[in-house]
């Protein structure tokens, strides 16, 4: 793709699940902010600021559109990353409204640790739910009465999706609970899973969505009633007296400020808008190319009896280990061949190490930037190493 023409010949980037590559238009949008309308957003009247505000507001709308949610019910706030977003919500939830906190076994440490800390702080019971091979949760097994449920809708090591996400959200809501979705891994390549789902909050990282480093919280407006004001400050109020303040978030127009204390990363937000525009303009062929690439690579790896796949099916994100071979060493060897891929437990220590008892893994996570020649190269190098 020409948007990734800065990739050198023979350079293969396979770590999109951590940081996706940014298309040129995103880089240009950020540069444009810094060179054309650098400003203090959402509080100034000068023209550069007005331009920034327009682009930031447009980005909020694009985010809602991307996940198929309506602005009258949901608000988009920006933060640092998924972990930060989840913690921002959990740290401000009123504990007396809930009975317990629930998460699942295949989670990234982002929700896994945050729910632990939430449980420790509030004294509420914490429950870790089992995920089926297809990624779904058997909702009949668990009691969701007044539960805070924090789960991903796509895993970060094999991409398995929360297939029954709609059923889960409905069941939890019926039981007076809330659902916070970690959509960090779903946003880039399987955001459709969120369409038609109305969880209480969706947290994701823009840097896994071809956008700059940025966190996003999409949240239902009624979540505000369930929260205390625990993280407040600049840019969040309409009025302040000696001992009181009036939050701007009380009004729908500035509801996003509820999670946006202090100045925001305006350039990055503008960049996210550009990334969403770019994604909207990607073609069917681009996606077919991605599918062909990851299927090809998955089948190649799956076909080797020395390779142990964690995946149960092909996905742009795939993890594996090779008999008798240290994955970190394999990662270093691939790096010498300009193949960039992640090794370790990918912040999913609990499931990969303690539940499955696997050694550190190798993860290939593909993106729209990958070319068929990338896959050919990976196969050629792996061939040399494995056989």
């Amino acid at each position: 793709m020409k948007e990734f023409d800065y990739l050198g010949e023979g350079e293969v980037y396979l770590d999109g699940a951590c940081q996706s590559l940014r298309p040129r238009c995103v880089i240009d949008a950020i540069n444009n902010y810094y060179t054309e309308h650098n400003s203090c957003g959402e509080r100034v009247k000068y023209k550069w600021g007005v331009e920034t505000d327009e682009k930031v507001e447009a980005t909020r709308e694009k985010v809602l559109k991307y996940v198929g949610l309506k602005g009258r019910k949901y608000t988009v706030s920006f933060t640092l990353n998924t972990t930060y977003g989840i913690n921002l919500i959990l740290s401000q939830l009123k504990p007396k409204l809930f009975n317990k906190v629930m998460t699942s076994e295949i989670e990234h440490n982002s929700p896994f640790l945050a729910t632990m800390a939430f449980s420790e702080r509030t004294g509420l019971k914490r429950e870790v739910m089992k995920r089926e091979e297809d990624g779904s949760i058997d909702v009949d097994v668990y009691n969701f009465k007044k539960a805070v449920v924090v789960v991903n809708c796509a895993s970060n090591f094999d991409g398995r999706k929360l297939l029954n996400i709609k059923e889960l959200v409905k069941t939890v809501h019926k039981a007076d609970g809330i659902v916070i979705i970690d959509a960090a891994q779903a946003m880039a390549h399987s955001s459709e899973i969120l369409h038609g789902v109305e969880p209480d909050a969706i947290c994701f990282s823009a840097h896994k969505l071809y956008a700059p480093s940025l966190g996003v919280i999409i949240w239902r407006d009624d979540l505000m009633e369930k929260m205390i004001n625990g993280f407040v400050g600049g840019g969040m109020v309409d009025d302040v007296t000696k001992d009181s303040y009036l939050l701007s978030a009380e009004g729908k127009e500035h509801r996003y400020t509820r999670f946006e204390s202090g100045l925001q990363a305006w350039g990055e937000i503008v960049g996210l808008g550009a990334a969403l525009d770019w994604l909207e303009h990607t073609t069917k062929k681009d996606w077919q190319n991605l599918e062909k690439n990851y299927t090809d690579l998955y089948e190649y790896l799956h076909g080797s009896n020395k390779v142990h796949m964690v995946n149960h099916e092909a996905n742009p994100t795939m993890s594996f280990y090779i008999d008798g071979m240290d994955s970190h060493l394999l990662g270093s060897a691939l790096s010498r061949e300009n193949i960039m891929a992640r090794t370790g437990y990918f912040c999913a220590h609990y499931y990969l190490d303690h539940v499955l008892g696997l050694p550190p893994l190798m993860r290939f996570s593909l993106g729209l930037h990958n070319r068929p020649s990338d896959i050919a190269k990976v196969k050629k190098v792996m061939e040399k190493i494995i056989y």
Partner: protein
Amino acid sequence: MVCIAAFIILALIGVFVAGISIFKPKIGKAYLKAMKKAWGCLWKKVRLQKCETGFKDDVKNTLLSRVMLKHPGWVKPLSIVIEVLSIVIVVVAVWAILTAIKSLLALWALGSCNVTKPSACSLGAEVCSIDESEPSNVFEATGRWFTEWGEIFEAIPDKFKTYNAEDYKFNYIEMSGDEVEGLDVVVDIFDPGCSVCMVSYRNQKNVGFFDSHNVRLVPFAIQDANGEYKFPNSEIVVRYMFAVEQLKSGASLGIIDRIFTNKSSNDLYYQQEFNDNYSREEATKKIESWLREDGFDDKGLKEIRKIVDYPEVADKMNENKDIIENQLKVRGIPTMIMDGKRHTGLWKDSE
């Protein structure tokens, strides 16, 4: 040597990193970072925590990643070699640290960084050491390494002990004939063949130490673990000193004074002649010639010769040996007990 080697290993690592940091700050920082990472991983492992990837793995991966691409088959055997090497490095590093600590502790508690052979420690005081037997194999050496820790810890309480010269029932020779009231009592253990004792004696004599203290001289012939005398003629000198003393109090002082201060016709100090050149018969003859000069006639000498062979003299020597080696656990000569403390090593003019 062992303790020096340990110091050298530790110092080399420190100097290496410090040196590089001065001349190539970037590389120095990288080494420091690697050391911190290594330490961090070690510290985690010590606390039985997981260390997913540590310094060793980084080094291993750097070395083996090249091999993996060119000769994948070599990776496994090379990996084993690196593992073994890393174990050796860890063992050597731990040994170096522990030996360095042991040597410092020994230096403080025993006055020498070498527990077995105190005179071999250049950091300690100048002494003629009472050496233990050298270990004959690796197992003995390893066992000795551990028992030395015990000896050091056993000696630590003695560092805080108050010594009283009169508490030890030595067989001694009073330096000034009779003890002078009001002067402090000092015990001075020496070996007639020990050069450090000779220099100490001269220093003491020069500053009038023997006039300002009631000095109890304890002649002692150092023996090794096999019972061999460190200085071959020291035993006969000590025997004669006790024998003469039995006949005439203070008469033996002339023997030791001549050995430590007089020169022979060969322009050598008598101590050197006794140690290196005289046979036992020649040493005996020389001592008797000095006794004759000091007024003993043939009859007196005959009597002395008889006493020299008395078991009582051997008993006196053995009693002193027991106090020195077992009660006081002295490892180096000269040793003095004065002012409530024990002082081992050369007595300098300034003292």
